[in-house]
Each structure stands twice: as C-alpha cells, then as structure tokens.
C-alpha cells in the first residue's frame, strides 16, 4: 500500500479532527460580541396578544392586560415601572424629549431582570368613578390595580368633543436603577393604554 497516494486524505482528516478537538476553545474566540444594548417594554391584551386591548371602560368592571420587560443590556438590571393616570390635559411622557410625565406615580412595581431574561406581570384593573352630567365630567374615586386600591380622588376628565370621548390614559413608565448615582432614572420608554370612560 502506497501511503503517499493518501497524503491529501491524511491532511484533510487531520485538519477536520483538529478542528473538532479545538472547537471548545474556538467557541470562546468566535463568539459574536453584543453591540446593541437595550430594554424591551410591552403591553399585551387579555389573550396575551397585541390585540383586544381594553378601550371602552365601564366602571367597576375588571380588565386584564400583561406588562412585560425584556433585558438586553448585557447585565442584570433593577427596574421600576411607575403606573400613572392622566387625562388629556395632564403631563404625559415625551417621546421626542425623552422625558417622563411629571405626575406622581400611583403605584411602583419593582422588578429585577437578569440579562437576556424576560419578566411579565399579569395586571387586572378596574376604575371606580362617578359621572357629573351637569358639568359633563367624570370624577374618579379609585383604581383597583391587582387588588391594590389606588386613590384617584381629585382626578377627573371632561368630555372631549373633538375625540368624542371621556379620555383616560393609563401610563406605565420604565425607570432603571443607576448604581453610579444611587437612584432611579427614567429609561426613556413607556407604554400606555388610552381609554374612553363610559358614563
């Protein structure tokens, strides 16, 4: 048997075997580095899909949604979701200027999410309010948020003739803990649900 005729085969088999044996080491070297760091924030409807979001709200009726956060920051993060409620005239988060609403949060949700992990919270909410037909205004009493009763005394919304609705906006702002400054800062993202409050 003339092994010289099999030189090429020997070289090829050696190269393949070397690559297979070296693959654990190559895995560490050939990892594609992460270049984009961000957080995802979303709201889903009661069927866990981006549809059937509550819009026409009846008082004291429960509505269900899902709030989710996914961490793509490359490290574990401590988030705070601030739930706020506003009418059409009150301060809203500004996407253009990347600023949060100046309203005080009604409820603060604390969550820690590991890198490349997802966190989701089912939310059941209902509004208690009264309708003042004389002033054509809805006066809120409370928001029940996952069995926690949030005080909405002083909150109201007037009839919006342009949009033909009693406007209500439930906002979820995402804040993130900054270890350098030792406090939370607005993470420049929010999701919200706009409602028509039925008298």
């Amino acid at each position, binding site marked *: 048997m003339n092994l010289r005729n099999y030189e090429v085969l020997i070289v090829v088999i050696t190269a393949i075997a070397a690559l297979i044996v070296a693959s654990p080491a190559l895995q560490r070297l050939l990892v594609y580095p992460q270049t984009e760091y961000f957080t995802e924030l979303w709201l889903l409807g009661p069927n866990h899909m981006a549809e059937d979001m509550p819009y026409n709200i009846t008082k004291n009726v429960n509505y269900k949604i899902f709030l989710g956060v996914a961490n793509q920051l490359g490290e574990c993060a401590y988030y705070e979701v601030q739930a706020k409620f506003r009418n059409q005239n009150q301060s809203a988060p500004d996407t253009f200027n990347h600023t949060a609403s100046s309203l005080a949060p009604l409820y603060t*949700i604390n969550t820690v999410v590991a890198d490349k992990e997802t966190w989701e919270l089912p939310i059941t909410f209902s509004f208690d309010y009264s309708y003042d037909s004389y002033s054509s205004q809805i006066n809120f009493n409370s928001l029940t948020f996952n069995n926690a009763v949030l005080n909405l005394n002083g909150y109201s919304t007037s009839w919006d003739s342009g949009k033909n609705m009693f406007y209500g906006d439930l906002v979820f702002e995402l804040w993130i803990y900054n270890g350098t400054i030792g406090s939370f800062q607005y993470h420049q993202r929010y999701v919200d649900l706009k409602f028509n409050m039925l008298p």
Partner: protein
Amino acid sequence: MHVIIPRLFMSLSFTMCELVLNKKFIKYAVPVVILILMAALPSVLVVAQDSSSVVSSARQQLISCYDAAKTAEAAGANISSLTSVLNEAGSLLSQSELAYSKGDFSTAQSLATQSSQRLGGFISMAGSLRDSAIQQSNYDFWINTVGSSVGALVVVLIGLQIWRVSNKRGTRVEVLNDEPAEL
C-alpha cells in the same frame, strides 16, 4: 319625684353652659386641650418616622441584594433563583410603599419587614453562586480551552507524523522500484 329630676337636669345643663361660656374656664381649658394634642401628635409622628425608616431600609437592602446578584451574574452564575427572590421582595416593598403613601404606617412597616425577611441570607447565597461560577469558569478554561487547544495540537502532530512516515515509505518504494535490473 318626676318633677325634681328634669329640674335637676336643667339646672345642671345651665351650670355646664355657664362654665363653658365662662371666660376663665376657656382661659384654662384651651391650653390643656392644646397640651393633650401636643402630647398625642409626636407619637403619631414617631410611628410615621419609624415606618419611613423601615421602608427605606428595606429599599436599601433590596438594592444591596441586587448588587450582589449582579456580581454573581458577572462571574457567570445563573441567577434566576436570585431574581425570583428579589422580585418577591420587590413586590412586598411596592405594597409597603403604597400603604405608606395612604398613611397606613403599621401595614407599611409590616410589609417592609416581610420584604427584608425575604432577603435574609440572600447575599451569602449570591456569594456562593458567584464562587461556584468562578470555579466552573476556571475548570472550563483549563479543560475546554487549554485542553482542547493542546488536544488539537496533538492531533496535528500525529497527523504530521503519519504524513512523514507515509512520505518515507513512499520514497523507499520508489527507490526500490528505480533500481536497475541486474544484467
């Protein structure tokens, strides 16, 4: 008898009214009422302050535990068990802060205490996960990285040796074949 009791009542009422409207009575009664209120108010403020410090302390503890989890994750540990605990404690803290904002200081304090208790032993647990991750990382480095590199080198050397042997044998066969036939 039935006439005497109403008269007695009426006379007592009149006496009380005279007392109340008596300026001297007002002069001494009002400061006493104020002093009673001042004695009661600090106790309410103390309860609020106590609750505030307990809630604050729970928040600070959550932050410290988050830092420990982050360190463990950076070492390569799987921190899903840690984040689960942090989120439970975070939920209690949220409820505590809500209760505090409503002025329900005793509930706020209770929930904040529960949050702190939930985080008991967390930092040592995070430390153990971190240490295990570092050990695993070292093991992975020596076995997977160094070991596989050396293994690949050995395979290449074996292949090279086989190639050299095949080369030598091939040359000998050629030489034998090239020798001229004896006349």
